[in-house]
């Protein structure tokens, strides 16, 4: 089966998965205690007003009808009306999603930029000064919580040194790059330790393997051995980890979005859940699910470039 057909097949399989996700999310939202009308109206709510609002929001219809109505809209790409903001989800989500996706992409690029050289050099100069310092430093950044690292960066680089803006997303892609650097770096520093470790281990494994001994015996220069043979294989576990981390980041960027005041989709989702804003939660989760599936698909496709033994 060739790559093209494989991708199409995976995309087709996405549909039933997404259906399943909408059912699960819908059911979970109904199961957790707390109701949108009471949450929106807060402490001053009177039962009559709560009942009126529930009726207006269609919350007193039977569950299957509510689900069906939501799905009917979704298949026509109408993601519903936010209960909290009283505007369409379609007008709220894209802008916020853009910020989060830009952040995740930027963080991934930075992670690769950090992990690749550090991982390779640590492996090649195993147990040397570079290796030990790197390991120690990354252990610290792995352990320090994101909101702490973020505040440190803000205090030092943004407020004291004024090298970076303190908040927000900016206008135009140059400003975006500038505004997102510190948040992306904060995220990268929490993922990089895992990737560096994985890379280092698999490179070391590769360096000690039979086929590498053969290559050396063949007369290949060490650099060619590493780059042509070892690296490609060593990348596989690292790519797996990276793919998983990126998938986890969808919705996991909330803390960083909070610290750096970024108007992202992670915060939108968390606030929507707290507000029991059912349409917003359902649609945002759906979009996240699509993105996670696409990232997984991408990771699987990348394998085929890395390892010819992998047959799709």
């Amino acid at each position: 089966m060739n790559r093209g057909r494989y991708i199409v097949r995976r995309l087709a399989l996405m549909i039933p998965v997404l259906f399943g996700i909408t059912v699960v999310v819908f059911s979970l939202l109904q199961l957790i205690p707390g109701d949108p009308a009471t949450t929106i109206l807060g402490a001053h709510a009177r039962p009559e007003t709560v009942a009126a609002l529930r009726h207006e929001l269609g919350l007193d219809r039977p569950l299957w009808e509510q689900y069906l109505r939501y799905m009917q809209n979704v298949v026509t790409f109408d993601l519903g009306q936010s209960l909290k903001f009283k505007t369409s989800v379609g007008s709220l989500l894209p802008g916020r999603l853009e910020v989060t996706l830009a952040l995740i992409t930027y963080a991934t690029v930075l992670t690769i930029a950090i992990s690749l050289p550090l991982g390779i050099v640590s492996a090649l100069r195993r147990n040397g000064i570079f290796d030990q310092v790197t390991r120690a430093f990354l252990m610290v950044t792995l352990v320090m919580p994101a909101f702490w690292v973020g505040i440190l960066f803000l205090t030092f680089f943004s407020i004291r040194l004024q090298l970076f803006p303190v908040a927000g997303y900016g206008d135009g892609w140059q400003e975006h790059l500038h505004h997102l650097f510190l948040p992306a770096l904060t995220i990268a520093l929490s993922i990089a330790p895992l990737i560096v470790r994985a890379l280092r281990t698999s490179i070391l494994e590769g360096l000690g393997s039979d086929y590498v001994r053969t290559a050396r015996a063949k007369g290949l220069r060490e650099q060619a051995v590493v780059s042509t043979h070892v690296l490609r294989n060593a990348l596989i576990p690292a790519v797996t980890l990276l793919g998983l981390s990126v998938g986890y980041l969808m919705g996991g960027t909330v803390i960083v979005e909070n610290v750096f005041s970024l108007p992202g989709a992670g915060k939108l989702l968390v606030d929507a859940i707290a507000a029991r804003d059912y349409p917003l939660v359902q649609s945002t989760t759906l979009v996240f699910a699509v993105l996670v599936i696409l990232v997984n698909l991408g990771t699987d496709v990348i394998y085929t470039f890395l390892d010819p033994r992998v047959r799709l």
Partner: protein
Amino acid sequence: MHPRPERTEKLAQLTRQIHDGTISRRAFMARALALGLSVSASDTVFRTYRAGAQDQAENPITVTVGGTPIAAVETDLTNATPGGTFRFGRLEDSDVLDPVTTTLNTSIWYFMSIYDQLIRVAPDGISLEPSLAESWDISEDGLTYTFHLRPNVLFSDGTPLTSADVLYSWVRAANDPGQIWTFTLDAMKRDAEGQVEGITAPDDATVVVELAKPWVPFLSDVAMFNLSVISKAFAEGNEERLATECMGTGPFALGEFRAGEILTLVKNPHYWEEGLPLLDGVDVNLVPDDNARILQLQGGELDGIMDVPFNRVPELQADPNLKVYQFPSTYTRYILLNVREAPLDDVHARRALQYATDRQTLVDVVLFGNGIPATSFMPKGALYWNDTLEGYPYDLAKAQEELAQSATPDGFALELSTIAGFVSDESMATALKDMWSQIGVEVTISPLETSIFNEAFTNATFQAMSQYWTNDIIDPDELVGFAVLQESVQAFHTGWENAEAQDLTRQGAAESDPQKRKEIYFRIQEIHSEESPMLPLYYQPYLNVTTTQVHNFQHPPTGQYNWKTTWMEQG
């Protein structure tokens, strides 16, 4: 249309003058007697309104720079430099900017700079003054209100304000099914389908409202945000736009609202108060992280912030570049007691808890000293707050005495519900647990997620619960109705029933004599204190911090920021 009642109008004028301090007692007595009041009635009226003004002196605004107090509200604007954009930072986002369907203070406190009402709350927070209505008449029977609109008022797009805009806005506010502020419009007449009737606009400058019953809080209701005047041309037929767009007559117009990011206000060039506002605009930035928000203020990225954690206040007060403000608010924190079941159905058990609560320590521990121990369930400084009510001083001996007279003399177990993750609630509950253990009451703290907490509240499935109140209108009827009446909310969901208090509450809403009203509300507060279905803990001020370049920053008791006369040093 009813003839203008001279006596009522003149008396209203005189009471305003007493409150403002622009009339001497002798002058007032002479005029009141000429109007036909008795000597004792005149005397009481005078003392009532004068006392109202004095209350303010005991509940002052405090502003400190580097720990040293400075003058709070700077009324002298001669050195004010106009211009500049005030950059403000806040914790929570607005939801909806439509005055009728909104639910959050985080929206209301900002769009109230964009919209005006016919009447507004005066800076003292307990009286009303004309806004879009220059004057109004009330019929003898209290059923008909005639409002005379101020001439030459323009919306921020330059179109003129007429009574048609008021009519449109008020009818929508009364009829829109998506709105929740129904309690203010209870007294309006309704037809068979529940649609409001009785609001008419006989000419471009007049609006007449006929109520279904006499309703003294009506003028306060008119000042509430849901009766904001919206441009009919802007909104009619296209009401969904009001969630994110505004067209009003206020000092500012909406610049833009980017949810999750920023809400900007821009100076209204057509504003009807000459020379105002002084600022070019206000940028309200969303900065969800407390540390980041304070950092931005200290680093010069913001000119002012709200939502200041109490534990950071001492450090901010010590900073010579910052002004720390404490404004009297109507924010009161309580412990609600569900009196439907034992052991809390016994008034002695409840009184024991009152005596065992060391309110000053709570203020010190939870608010780091920034608050006032509470006596009454009504907010301090609010209209008809009972300043003679002693409340319950901290007295363990008396607490034991009360408990001994109850059905559970050896103490009891108590579940206290709080909002999970809310730091103030957590420290307050922990302190109370410690205090009440001294009389044998074993508290289990039950932190609940916000939505679940609200459900427990509205369904009254709590035993004891930490709650708060802020007034939406200045009239005491809003809070008293909510806390005393059985209908709808069962006395703030405590289940408390007291026939005398309920009767008095209904009387208070219909009683037009201010002195009688004051006596009614004073008595209600006494009864509430005796029966203690709620334990008032403390009154909490509004805390804001700005740089020293900002002048005349105001946060009135109703919470709705007033940026009109705020100015910043330039350069």
